[in-house]
């Protein structure tokens, strides 16, 4: 499903050139749950953003379902992104001016769904996330865990093929963190591909394998449970 060949990302400022990613070649199959780990500044998030088509590589190829993303312009990438990809962020990134329902509904608006279909799908997801009773509340009125459940719901509502999660538990206490991880695992069991960046070795183990990055290089892959693939 996802294949990268010698991905490279350089950040160039006036004085220095920083290599954020160097020769990353990896492959992720449909239905896989992959964790990415590494110390701060090793390039985890950069990789995730490139895979999520929010950013483009400086060199190398990125094939998503066989299509070369690095040759697409922003408009094409945006179109591909909204159909196939959902995001979960560490800091939730819910829109303060929208209610829980409206936040989750937002991706469907960009997909151009009918109001009825939107209503059905949003309510469905909110039930799954067990947050339907809070549908009319604003993000500020929710706890951190509840906010992240809304954010996960928002990522899921467009029924993406893959979810990229950037430290989804980073702002949560352990109880809420566990809850989010159980949610992601159950989604994966239903067939959604998940790529997750995390600091926590414990949460990384929820994935089928863990990719370790150090200074922009892949330094190893742990396969937690080969049978899961």
């Amino acid at each position, binding site marked *: 499903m996802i294949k990268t060949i010698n991905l490279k990302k350089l950040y160039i400022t006036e004085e220095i050139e920083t290599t954020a990613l160097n020769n990353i070649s990896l492959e992720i199959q449909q239905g896989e749950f992959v964790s990415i780990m590494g110390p701060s500044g090793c390039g985890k998030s950069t990789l995730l953003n490139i895979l999520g088509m929010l950013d483009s590589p400086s060199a190398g190829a990125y094939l998503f379902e066989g299509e070369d993303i690095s040759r697409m312009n922003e408009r094409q990438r945006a179109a591909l992104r909204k159909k196939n990809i959902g995001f979960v962020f560490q800091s939730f990134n819910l829109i303060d001016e929208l209610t829980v329902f409206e936040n989750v509904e937002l991706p469907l608006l*960009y997909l151009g769904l009918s109001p009825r279909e939107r209503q059905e799908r949003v309510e469905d997801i909110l039930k799954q996330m067990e947050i339907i009773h809070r549908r009319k509340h604003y993000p500020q009125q929710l706890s951190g865990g509840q906010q992240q459940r809304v954010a996960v719901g928002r990522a899921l509502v467009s029924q993406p093929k893959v979810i990229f999660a950037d430290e989804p538990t980073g702002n949560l206490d352990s109880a809420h963190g566990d809850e989010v991880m159980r949610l992601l695992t159950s989604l994966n069991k239903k067939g959604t591909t998940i790529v997750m960046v995390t600091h926590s070795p414990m949460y990384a183990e929820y994935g089928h394998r863990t990719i370790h990055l150090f200074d922009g290089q892949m330094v190893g892959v742990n396969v937690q449970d080969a049978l899961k693939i």
Partner: protein
Amino acid sequence: MFGNYLKVALRNLIKNKAYSLINILGLALGIACVILILLYVRDELSYDRFQPDNEQLYRISRSWLNEDGQTSLHLARVAPPILPLLMQDYPNIIDKGARVIQDREVRLKIGDRTFIEDRLFWAENSFSDIFGIKFIQGDPQTALSEPNCLVLTQAIAQKIFGSADILGKTINYNGELDLKITGVVQDPPVNSHFRYGVLGSFKSLIPMLGESYFRTNWGSNNFLTYVKLHPNLPGSLLRERFPEFLDKQLTAAAIAAGREIDPSGRKPHQSNLLHLMPVADIHLHSHLNSEVSANGDITNIYLFAIIAFFILLIACINFMNLATARSAKRAREIGMRKVMGATRGNVALQFLGESLLITTMAALLSIAMVEMLLPWFNSFIGKELRIAFFSDPVILVGLLLLIVLVALLAGSYPAFFLSGFRPLSILKQNTRTGSGGTALFRRILVVMQFTVSIALLICMGVVYQQVRFFQTRDLGFRKENVLLLPGNEDLAARSEAFKNALMEHPAVNSVSGARLIPSDNLLNSWGVQITDEKGERIRTGFRLAVVEHDWDYFRTFGLKLVAGRGYSRDHPADDSASFIINETAVRAFGWAGNREAIGKKFQYGPRHGTVIGVAADFNFESLHNKVDPIIFLLNQEAIQTFAVNISGQDLPATLRFIEDKWGSFVGDFPFTYTFLDQEWNDLYLAEIKLGEIFGLFSVLAVIIACLGLFGLAAFAAEQRTKEIGIRKVMGASIGDIVKMLSVEFLGLVLLANVLAWPVAWYVMDRWLGNFAYRISINPVLFVGAGFAALLIALFTVSYQSYRAAIANPVVSLRYE
């Protein structure tokens, strides 16, 4: 999707009330200003466009040239023979024409009631056809075709008779003639250069003035003369015939009168010219002497349009500034929308839509403002503008266009700027918007706002100082406590008795009757001929304007002589063979000095005389004009105004006494009076008005600019909350913080000063070029305006800075 945009926009507006208020209020003020100004401009541009075929309708005017080719006088009215001769010579060009002459201070008597009418015009029959006058009563074809007919406007008919059903009734004119009412017409439109009250038939004048007057008098330039050309003929066709026409007809007239043709060999068209102006252009483009009414000025239209544009720009800049300054708050939303697949176009459209929403709200508010301000604005500009927002299609469409224009102008930059956010950088870090490029752009915008505001303030100051200069300058004559009474033939004939009667009161110092008084235009002049040593007669090459008056003129106005003597009853020949001229005239004659002028002989019009005195130069006309050569002639028969020099003590009693005497002399003529200083002030109404307009709009500009600055300062303080907290923990005092936050803005205002000064200086120096007597621009004004702007800005900014500075640092640090 639209619903979602609207929801977000509205919730943002509600959440940030202060911000919304500043934005909407600023825009509404700007839009209201523009609506008012556009109403005014529209009205001014509409003048005289309602006549049928108005593009074929022209007015003829006449100018006179000095020997050097300079125009010495340009009158809006011409001599009576000109129109019939033109129509006779060029029947293929001129279709119709009409002459009209104004009669002022006419006594109209119905039964035992007398009305004074200032707007009686004797008009040829074709006048009503040419101007498309709409008759309510009477026959348009014939109403003015017979002698002694009168046509009243509806308003006058209502005033005099209380009804319009008055055909066939008679009105007595000045106790001389009985005139029959043959028509009642609609009032002339307000937007007409020519607003008549009563029209009399032209033929009534023939017995009064004599038939030959209309054929041969080329010197009585009192006739408003309009022509309508045949369809589709350009005015230039007639215009280019004028020189040959004048040469032919003036030569013929001179021969017929047995006068010699100009011995200097100048052709008639080299000493006077005819001009043709489209009637629709008169209101904004004609500023001649003897205009039928005070006209507007196209310069003011441009000026107003520019001011309207700038005020709107300032309001739009507020919007842009606040929207981009607030961008940090919207950044996450924009990032998420992009992550979810929104393109840059989607986001830009969303923000343009928000701008449209805010502009629409502002426009609705501005409608309320305009409704509230219109009566006041009307009294300010002296018009009766009305506005029907929803029934007048022009206004409705105009308003919608204005909304779209403002929404685009104000919203395009924020939309462009915000939609360019990279979702990544927003969502990962806490983006510090307001740094780098945008902050620079915002600074430029603030500088622009204050440049405009300061320039307007300076203009206001310069205009005000020039007006003060007009009002306080020593004019060389006494203008305080001089009472002016209208004269008439009857009173002029008994002027000495009337004057003696007034002099009985101890508060009356002196009384004089005259044709012209200081503040009048010097329109009259006759030809000058000097006989040189060899006995040859030489015509002078300059215009010597004449002021005719009685014995006591110099005393009444406190005029001074610099050589010779004044007119005196001890010299009976003074009223037939003596001249007094002013110093400028002495120079124009080329005489060595004022003393040398005494005893010089020349012929002025029909009068042969000797110079007996030289009057000190003084400003007879308004200070727009230089002092012209003037000759003062004693002529007791030419009295049109009485000037009464009074002590000013117990004014009511003096006025009662004068009214009493007035009544005993003229009976039914109502007692009206003005004061000379008031007449003099009225000469500068245009400048006073201009000063007020600058004042009004500069204050508005400053208010709107400060609204923006206030908002911007609030956001600057908010963005630096953490920095302020840390600085305070490190020991910064409140004063330090206020200084830190305020200094940046003050720098911008200082820069705006540097930009505004040369612009204002240039514009005002050109404006002052209009006046023969002008102030030199005072640098203190520039410093003052700059300082005022700085002070206002400081006050605006420091409030926000102070609020930020007194906040508890612990709170602000925990906040991040």
